[in-house]
């Protein structure tokens, strides 16, 4: 049977077909749909969201040692969080097959950096496989489990956004039942104290040599010969771009990328006049090929930044002199206003950023929808580094510049569970005068509203008790814990002001749920009384997508405001800040 599946859905299908027993992950674009698909369609695989990628990885280690085929999945920066267990699990090796999916995000469609995790696989000295479409993604998952078990190693499956989020045709197969295994006590293999780890490190080095042989022989690394003098070495989605723009060249496609099949590639290079390396992001292949003296070029023509595309690859080939003419776009681009993502109408984060903007304090930010608080016209978030960084960096900033200027950390509920708790412990322990705002909207909103320890539900839909954040932070020793309704602008502003002035760390929790998930919130909309509106534009500056410029203008020619009733959720914020009090409930307006 054939089906159109995204790369992520195909990975989930491969996991199911490979007889995997457990999958654990933390949501992160572009990896999220792997676990969502497992939970929705393949219930024979126990799947769970963990609070962060490190825990997910460790849950996976336990499952593998317990004898089960195991999947852990995360976005590229999530692997940084899980790097600690990864580096040493590479030493112990597995029992049941273990696959780590790293979904990289070239172009940073929804990420803070575009690191190339092929290097992390090499750093950990584990093999990685890289598919070029959905069909390969599914097949490679199954091969990855065989490799993991044959060579006793975790295996990385490296995806990129265009693989994860492209749908293509996939042939489905029936699932297999892998050999039943149990946990066997083996401290020399699994207890990484120095004496044991020294032995295991030697095994890792020897394993890498065996994997090198495998890389030379696996059908995942192959040449496609068309009798051309030009050879292209490529892998992943870059293969597809190159193959489309230059179908007549010879190709060496790398599907098994660590260690590289250097002998096979050397033969390929020697058989061609010109050889180019087409790879996205870093010169991972190119550097290794140049290091063994092969005459290849790549980054010089194709660049290291962002995503490749058919056009970029064509331009690079022209610059390299292997193609004479390429087709350029015939229509000039139009330079237009930007349309960045914005906080939704009714988003409970909006009132928080309006207050923080007013107070002109330093705001250390975190990863989530609320990172959008940095954009114009809110301009109220000053840093964003990684999951959980808001609290630690607020502490450091407050220590050097003093509390009187005010330092506020903003962090979402899921991010707080992920890696904010330890930051807050630091604030308590080191007596920091920071104000930590936990924007608790009861969802992992940015990635699509996934469950987490605070929602009271699991990925597979089980009802569980939820972690109560006020109880948790009080138990950690925070004495000043306040809750505010972020739809109440004056209250929010006053509470933040009070807590900034207070000695010791404060926590302010906002309580309104996400307007989209789990339930779409739509209360009675508000309207603008255009007779009273004087076009002051105060409501434009709260950056609500429901508020637009009316065709009517004031005497200076500035537009008055109009509210789209299909978008307005009735959150009341604009009505609260309108100096003319001309934003009123729709039903009241009709009466008047």
């Amino acid at each position, binding site marked *: 049977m*054939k089906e*159109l599946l995204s790369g992520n859905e195909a990975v989930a299908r491969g996991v199911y077909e490979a007889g995997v027993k457990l999958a654990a992950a933390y949501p992160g*674009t*572009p990896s999220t749909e792997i676990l969502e698909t497992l939970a929705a369609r393949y219930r024979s695989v126990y799947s769970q969201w963990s609070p962060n990628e490190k825990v997910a990885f460790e849950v996976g280690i336990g499952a593998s040692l317990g004898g089960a085929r195991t999947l852990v999945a995360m976005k590229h920066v999530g692997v940084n969080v899980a790097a600690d267990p990864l580096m040493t699990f590479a030493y112990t090796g597995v029992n049941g097959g273990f696959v780590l999916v790293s979904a990289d995000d070239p172009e940073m*469609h*929804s990420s803070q950096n575009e690191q190339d995790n092929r290097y992390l696989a090499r750093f950990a000295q584990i093999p990685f496989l890289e598919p070029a*479409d959905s069909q390969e993604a599914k097949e490679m998952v199954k091969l990855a489990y065989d490799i993991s078990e044959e060579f006793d190693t975790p295996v990385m499956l490296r995806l990129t*956004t*265009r693989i994860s*989020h*492209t*749908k*293509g*045709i996939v042939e489905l197969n029936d699932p297999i039942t892998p050999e039943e295994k149990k946990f066997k006590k083996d401290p020399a293999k699994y207890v990484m104290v120095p004496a044991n780890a020294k032995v295991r490190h030697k095994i890792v080095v020897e394993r890498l040599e065996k994997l090198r042989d495998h890389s030379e022989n696996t059908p995942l690394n192959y040449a496609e010969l068309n009798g051309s003098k030009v050879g292209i070495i490529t892998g992943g*989605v870059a293969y*597809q*771009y190159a*193959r*489309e*723009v230059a179908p007549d060249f010879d190709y060496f496609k790398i599907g098994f990328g660590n260690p590289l099949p250097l002998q096979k590639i050397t033969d390929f290079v020697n058989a061609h006049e010109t050889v180019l390396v087409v790879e996205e992001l870093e010169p991972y292949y190119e550097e290794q090929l140049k290091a063994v003296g092969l005459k290849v070029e790549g980054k010089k023509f194709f660049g290291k930044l962002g995503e490749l*595309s*058919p*056009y970029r690859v*064509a331009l690079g080939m022209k610059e390299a002199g292997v193609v004479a003419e390429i*087709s*350029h*776009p*015939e*229509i*000039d*681009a*139009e330079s*237009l*206003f*930007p*349309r*960045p*993502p*914005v*906080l*939704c109408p009714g988003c409970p984060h909006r009132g928080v950023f309006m207050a923080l903007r007013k107070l002109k304090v330093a705001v250390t930010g975190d990863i989530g*929808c609320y990172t*959008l608080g940095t*954009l*114009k*016209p809110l301009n109220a978030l000053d840093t964003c580094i990684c999951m959980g960084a808001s609290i630690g960096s607020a502490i450091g900033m407050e220590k050097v510049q003093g509390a009187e200027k005010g330092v506020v950390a903003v962090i979402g509920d899921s991010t707080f569970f992920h890696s904010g708790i330890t930051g807050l412990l630091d604030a308590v322990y080191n007596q920091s005068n920071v104000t930590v705002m936990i924007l608790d909207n009861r969802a992992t909103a*940015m*990635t*699509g509203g996934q469950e987490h320890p605070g929602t009271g539900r699991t990925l597979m839909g089980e009802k569980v008790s939820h972690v109560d954040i006020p109880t948790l932070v009080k138990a950690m020793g925070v004495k000043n814990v306040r809750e505010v309704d972020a739809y109440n602008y004056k209250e929010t502003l006053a509470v933040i002001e009070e807590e900034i002035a207070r000695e010791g760390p404060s926590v302010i929790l906002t309580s309104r749920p996400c307007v989209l998930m789990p339930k779409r919130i739509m209360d009675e909309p508000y309207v603008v009384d255009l007779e009273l509106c004087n076009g002051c*534009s105060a409501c*434009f*500056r709260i*950056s*609500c*997508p429901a*508020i*637009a*410029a009316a065709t009517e203008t004031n005497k200076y020619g500035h*537009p008055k405001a109009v509210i789209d009733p*299909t978008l307005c959720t009735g959150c009341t914020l604009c009505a609260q800040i309108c100096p003319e009090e001309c934003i009123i409930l729709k039903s009241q307006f009709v009466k008047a």
Partner: protein
Amino acid sequence: MSENKFDILIVGVGGQGVLLASEIISAVALRAGFDVKKSEVHGMSQRGGVVTSHVKIADKVYSPTIAQGQADIIMAFEQAEGLRAINWMKKDGIAIISRTTLIPAIVTSSKELHYPEDPIAAAKAKAAKVISVDADDIARELGNPRVVNTILLGVASNYLPFSVADWTEAMKSKIKERFVEINLTAFERGRSIKLDTVKA
């Protein structure tokens, strides 16, 4: 349009149904026995940002994204987004643009940024085959503002090699049952709009 290759770029703003439209085109291409790839970016784009979906249909598809300047058809659910995407199209490609206007808060609250006066006229100045569709009006007339995407699919269907029966089946497989009827009507309305039926 070369014989067996159809590169379709669908653009709009988060929440307008870009992804459903590309799902339906992919499903109809699969039914008709073509190779198909459809690529889009999730995440940030859900929050009112630009949403772009690439659908590639051919006997064998390699790149998941369309090469700049190679799109055979552009479907735009918002007129400024249609103009923004116009350089992705081949010079003789077809742009189907809804007259929908969505001005983002970043423009409304700014003195420097402006929404173009007439994006469709600007698109027509650049490309020969631009079909402007009053999709919002038609949708309102049909009683559901959310069928703009199927109206545009109907227009696009005139330039794609699939039967109405295949389109109907594809829509039935992707649209919730109680909305199927109105979407089929919207599709039919769109199908009556062609390049030569639109006034310049």
